[in-house]
């Protein structure tokens, strides 16, 4: 068995560019290098044509028209533009925004900024399964609610929200519905009409496209209006000024097309790999806990806590495997994952969580290899763990008064 190390299993963080995407992009660096906004020569026309074709490709992935796609620098910008842009545009109608506690920081911090500017924000709690319920959205909506922002899939635990049901509730009340679809688009079915979405954020590098390019879907019928956040030449119908990154946009288009045409077969393959990983780990290691719903989950995601083994120590042991942890120690803040806290995972278990993100280029051999090291490291670290020893002796860890530090 020949395996190339290190193994990449952190496909929630980013994905490698698919070679077919790279091939599509290359001519746009050196040959078709024109500014898509140049109207007076063929260099510009060629670039514009490529950009428009990519618009259609990205639109088709989410059931939209290419004319509803606004290019951005990435999903963080898309989230900012969507939420700030809609909230500002509608501020005469209301000042209330609804989002969820488990959203990405690009959404949460945007909402916090708006709070400072006088908006009111409701951060909905989620269930133990990690999902936002349509009922909780309905209950939170008021006459002042102008924007509801709920993600399609969670980036840490991979759980899929019922966006179609949520969209129906939001539209009953006539607010703008924004969906951060970064993790889910291209991986699970998502249709802007089925979910009655007004605004949706997308990112190329989560779907085997290049980094540095994203998109915001902005509904045309009925027309959704947002206030631009970047002023300049009036590109993207005035919603986002700035010269378009043509090669990246072409790559995004190709990546979206591949994701759309291969979604079903790839999801089935990833689900099989994910289950192979989960079953092998859980059959060999006791005291493991899956974080978030198994039923409503991205096919390539496994977020699992290995009780009594601290996450960063695990990552250190898995040095040839790129995964991530909800442990405090992997962040500068020393706070464990806010997403795990929001779904009610005990802090001590949050410190033991590992996120596996399987992707297009992972193989069965890699999964088997990773299982072997994971099982091995958990055993080794549990031998080192005073908590495991105490649990084996039947001591209830909750009965001990720990000196917090």
């Amino acid at each position, binding site marked *: 068995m020949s395996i190339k190390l290190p193994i990449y299993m952190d496909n929630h963080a980013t994905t490698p560019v698919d070679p077919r995407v790279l091939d599509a992009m290359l001519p746009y660096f050196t040959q078709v290098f024109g500014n898509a906004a140049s109207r007076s020569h063929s260099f510009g026309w060629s670039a514009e044509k490529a950009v428009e074709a990519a618009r259609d490709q990205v639109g088709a992935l989410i059931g939209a028209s290419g004319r509803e796609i606004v290019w951005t620098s990435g999903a963080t910008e898309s989230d900012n533009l969507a939420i700030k842009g809609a909230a500002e545009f509608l501020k005469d109608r209301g000042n209330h925004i609804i989002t969820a506690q488990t959203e990405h920081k690009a959404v949460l911090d945007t909402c916090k900024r708006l709070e400072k500017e006088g908006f009111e924000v409701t951060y909905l709690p989620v269930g133990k399964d990690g999902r936002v319920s349509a009922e909780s959205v309905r209950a939170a909506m008021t006459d002042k609610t102008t924007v509801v922002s709920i993600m399609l899939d969670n980036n840490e635990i991979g759980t899929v929200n019922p966006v179609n049901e949520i969209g129906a509730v939001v539209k009953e009340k006539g607010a703008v519905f924004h969906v951060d679809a970064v993790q889910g688009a291209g991986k699970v079915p998502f249709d802007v009409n089925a979910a009655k979405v007004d605004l949706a954020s997308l990112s190329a590098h989560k779907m085997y496209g290049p980094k540095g390019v994203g998109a915001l879907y902005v509904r045309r019928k009925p027309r959704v209006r947002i206030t631009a956040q970047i002023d300049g030449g009036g590109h993207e119908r005035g919603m986002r000024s700035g010269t378009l990154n043509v090669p990246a946009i072409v790559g995004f288009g190709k990546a979206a097309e591949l994701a759309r045409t291969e979604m079903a077969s790839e999801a089935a393959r990833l689900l099989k790999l994910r289950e192979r990983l989960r079953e092998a780990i859980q059959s060999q290691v006791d005291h493991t806990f899956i974080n978030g719903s198994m039923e409503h989950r991205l096919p390539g995601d496994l977020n699992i806590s290995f009780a009594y083994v601290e996450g*960063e*120590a695990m990552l250190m042991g898995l040095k040839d495997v790129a995964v991530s942890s909800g442990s405090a120690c992997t962040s500068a803040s020393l706070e*464990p994952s806010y997403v795990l806290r929001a779904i009610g995972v005990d802090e*001590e278990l949050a410190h033991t969580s590992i996120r596996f993100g399987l992707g297009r280029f992972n193989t069965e051999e890699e999964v088997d290899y990773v299982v072997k090291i994971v099982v091995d490291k958990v055993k080794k670290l549990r031998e080192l763990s*005073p*908590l495991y*020893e105490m649990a084996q002796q039947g001591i209830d860890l909750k009965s001990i008064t720990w000196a917090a*530090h």
Partner: protein
Amino acid sequence: MAYSEKVIEHYENPRNVGSFDKDDPSVGTGLVGAPACGDVMKLQLKITDEGIIEDAKFKTFGCGSAIASSSLATEWVKGMSIDQAMAIKNTQIVEELNLPPVKIHCSVLAEDAIKGAIADYKAKRAKGNGNGNA
């Protein structure tokens, strides 16, 4: 995060992993940290009647730096007198392992664990029997 070679070495080959009987009158046990904070260290010292640490063992739930700090602490205290062990400062551990600022609390825990184990041993001795709390 990049780890120093010494942290990696202790993590890969931790010294003195294990446990002594906490009810043994010659054993002092220090248990510091909290699971919710992501670090728990148990450090045990076996101390002679003359007050010399003849053996040490540890178990740690925590990141690589926490494991390395406690492994190093057991290595250092062996053969020391109680007073010498009490004088170990977390900054010495930081220096030896090249811990970055965000990991300084790991060295503090190791120092606390040594002090905790000695305090436990002394409490047992004061009682004059082996029924001290571990």
